[in-house]
């Protein structure tokens, strides 16, 4: 790998350029009209304009990006997260052009788009999945039978959905027909697939995910879990590693399950196996995320392993140098995502960034961002501005360090969720480690009442 094109923008583009530079690889940025002059464009060795500001005309435009690949002579493409990162057609186009795709193969990406594929795989491998349908449901009778068997509330979900879209609860047998019809319609319109499946809703769950790496020769390591239960509207706000809820035995079991799943899929490169944990402490395999994730820094902070460098090495065909026994978790790391949003209503807050006061960073704190004073935060893209991460010898110390850094951090000109981060750090439920995916809604409800 000599020249890497990053088909993304913002902080993740900067993060990937850094890893590439450290490995002596040249870098290519792509940018839209709105990003002309943006930090990610200036941070690369060269930058190529790919189109207008709306994502479908630039960062989601496969032909335009492939033109930039050809023009730059890049021999590899890293998709980052979001945009085309889990798009099998894009991965296929990159590989067909004889270019290295930094990620799993297009076939694997296509397989795991289907939640039912994942559920079937879990069943086959003895990894628990939530009670519900085996594969997709195609008739009303099937759903009625599952309703009678598992009872309410059931969830009707889109096989190829994402971001919580189209998930509908079923509380009464009488509403099954209506919900079945409407879910199929939403799926068809939003994702081009009317396939749906049914699962039992797990109340007040925790979101636990296992970071894994796999090379091209069937070697895998699992780098422990991240807990991402502090969410609002299916968007993560605070993540940490390790989880205060996961015991050593559970961690070993989850890691073994994750490797078994990825091995069976023929998965390669970095991937995350996602589980939910019920209030009773049962774990259920949900899906595989075929990308580097936003929250990857917490794993890097506690393992000392640079996940993006590992991605590039794996993509170059290097065998994994890490063995499972090399993976040791040191202390605790927590990340707060900072969005350009009103911290109480979560309404987007586009505008121009004014004066920024950055927190003092040490070896135990990290700030990933692509902000600068005078930069326009455009309405076209994701509202995430920055990720602030702190590590401590234990969870308490990590919380205190993150809290301190958040309190030093100010961004003028737009509204941000920095105050939400400090509110989470101050909350009793979070400090005690007893929280679930509904925590943020409960915290906001008590603050406003």
């Amino acid at each position: 790998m000599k020249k890497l094109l990053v088909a993304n923008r913002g902080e993740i583009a900067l993060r990937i350029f850094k890893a590439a530079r450290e490995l002596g690889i040249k870098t290519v940025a792509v940018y839209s009209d709105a990003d002309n002059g943006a930090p990610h464009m200036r941070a690369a060795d060269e930058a190529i304009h790919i189109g207008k500001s709306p994502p479908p005309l630039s960062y989601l435009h496969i032909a335009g990006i492939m033109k930039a690949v050809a023009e730059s002579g890049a021999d590899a493409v890293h998709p980052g997260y979001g945009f085309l990162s889990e798009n099998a057609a894009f991965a296929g186009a990159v590989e067909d052009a004889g270019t290295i795709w930094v990620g799993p193969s297009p076939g694997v990406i296509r397989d795991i788009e289907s939640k039912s594929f994942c559920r079937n795989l879990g069943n086959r491998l003895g990894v628990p999945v939530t009670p519900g349908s085996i594969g997709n449901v195609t008739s009303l009778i099937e759903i009625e039978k599952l309703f009678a068997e598992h009872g309410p509330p059931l969830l009707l979900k889109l096989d190829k959905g994402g971001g919580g879209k189209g998930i509908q609860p079923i509380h009464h047998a009488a509403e099954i027909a209506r919900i079945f019809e409407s879910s199929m319609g939403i799926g068809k319109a939003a994702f081009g697939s009317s396939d749906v499946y049914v699962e039992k809703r797990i109340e007040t769950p925790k979101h636990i995910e296992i970071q894994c790496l796999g090379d091209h020769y069937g070697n895998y390591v699992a780098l422990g879990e991240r807990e991402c239960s502090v969410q609002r509207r299916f968007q993560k706000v605070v993540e940490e590693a390790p989880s205060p809820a996961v015991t050593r035995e559970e961690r070993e079991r989850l890691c073994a399950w994750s490797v078994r799943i990825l091995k069976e899929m023929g998965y390669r490169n970095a991937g995350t196996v996602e589980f939910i944990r019920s209030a009773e402490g049962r774990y259920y395999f949900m899906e595989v995320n075929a990308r580097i994730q936003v929250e990857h820094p917490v794993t890097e902070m506690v393992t000392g392993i640079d996940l993006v460098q590992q991605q590039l090495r794996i993509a170059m065909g290097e065998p994994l140098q890490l063995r499972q026994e090399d993976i040791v978790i040191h202390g605790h790391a927590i990340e707060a995502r900072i969005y350009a949003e009103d911290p109480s209503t979560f309404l987007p807050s586009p505008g121009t960034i004014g004066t920024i006061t950055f927190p003092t960073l040490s070896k135990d704190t990290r700030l990933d961002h692509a902000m600068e004073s005078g930069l326009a935060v455009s309405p076209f893209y994701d509202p995430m501005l920055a990720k602030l991460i702190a590590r401590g010898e234990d969870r308490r110390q990590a919380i205190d360090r993150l809290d301190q850094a958040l309190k030093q951090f100010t961004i003028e000109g737009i509204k941000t969720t920095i105050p939400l981060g400090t509110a989470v750090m101050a909350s009793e439920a979070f400090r005690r480690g007893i929280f679930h995916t509904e925590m943020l809604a409960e915290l906001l409800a008590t603050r406003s009442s």
Partner: protein
Amino acid sequence: MEQNIMAPMPGLVARVVVAVGDKVEQGQEVAVINCMKTEIPVTADRSGTVRSILVKEWDELQVGDAMVAIDAA
């Protein structure tokens, strides 16, 4: 009297959900703006009949840009 329904927030036109000739009630959703991946409904500020659609999908919007023209009832 012709009135324009305007963008309450900058962003992209995600979709327009009314057509020329439709009768709309005050408060009814006529379009959706996508701002930083959040969908924000645009509602009619008065009742009337849709005279023309002034935007199309993925158009860029500033606050106050006219989106849908209606003949007020």
